[in-house]
């Protein structure tokens, strides 16, 4: 039983070796010439105007939250599919399908809520604000 953990260890070791190995090669190969003109902010060739540390419009946070939410939903779809395959193989397939559809319906409910309250587009529609 313990040998399975061996495979996991090799997997982790290989991963870290690959990452830090390429960084090390990079350190030896790449040129590093830092001078202040290179570190200036890139603004389409122009010197920057004013500072970027300003109070952003609150809609940005809104859009970021909505994106985060749906991103997590997409990530959850993969285990849902695996669970569906496993349950469909063992038990009655129709019941497994219903469970998956229920799960998807719950996700769609979140989407509908956001859509109705106008959080998806930038300019909040007047009708949606209660």
């Amino acid at each position, binding site marked *: 039983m313990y040998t399975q953990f061996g495979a996991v260890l090799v997997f982790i070791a290989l991963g870290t070796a690959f990452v830090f190995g390429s960084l090390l090669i990079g350190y*030896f*190969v*790449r*040129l*590093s*010439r830092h*001078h202040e*003109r*290179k570190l*200036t902010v*890139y603004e389409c*060739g*122009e*010197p920057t105007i004013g500072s970027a540390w300003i109070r952003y419009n609150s809609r940005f946070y809104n859009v970021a939250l909505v994106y985060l939410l749906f991103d997590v939903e997409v990530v959850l779809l993969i285990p849902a599919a695996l669970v569906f395959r496993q349950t469909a193989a063992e038990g009655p397939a129709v019941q497994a399908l219903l469970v998956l559809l229920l799960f998807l319906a719950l996700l769609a409910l979140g989407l509908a809520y956001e859509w109705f309250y106008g959080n998806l587009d930038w300019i909040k529609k007047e009708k949606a604000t209660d």
Partner: protein
Amino acid sequence: MEQSAKGPTTPQQMLREAIADPQDLRRYLHYLATIRAEGLSTSVIIAPLEAAINWARASSIWPLTFGLACCAIEMMATGADKFDLDRFGAGAFRPTPRQADLMLVAGTVTYKMAPRLKRLYDQMPEPKFVMAMGACTIGGGPYCKHGYHVVKGIDLLIPVDIYVPGCPPRPEALLDALLRLQDKISKNQPFAERFNKDTKNQKKPL
């Protein structure tokens, strides 16, 4: 070893001379000493590595979209499907200088554009190359005599690697220039540059 009058000959002497920082020098001398102790000449290990690095850099040049005038349309035609730039690995036009290797200056550079050109060149990461495409970038082109607002050639601003004559140069000329640039890249020595501290090809800032 006495220093020969005509300057460094073997790569090692050049490196020793180029390295100013003593700490780096000691580390590199120790590295050379171990290599020589095993009887292998340094080029056996470094040369293939350098060749591999050069090959990697040469065959994936990402040009910066810097289309100014008529040459930009010929550059786009070269990037399109008949004269495909992608065959040489140079088709990925990057809008930001941070991800670009090659600054392909295509079009007339005017005095109003010159500081911007210099700033963009400075913002590009280090193994960078410049290709002056078209007669205007080489020496002012048709606007040289009476053009009061045209810079007479961009080598007044930034060091140029490859000049592509023509007004506008044909796409075949641009592809040929790209191949010459790839030959040029495959000849330089990345390790020598790596340990060379002073910025040798920096023009004085504007």
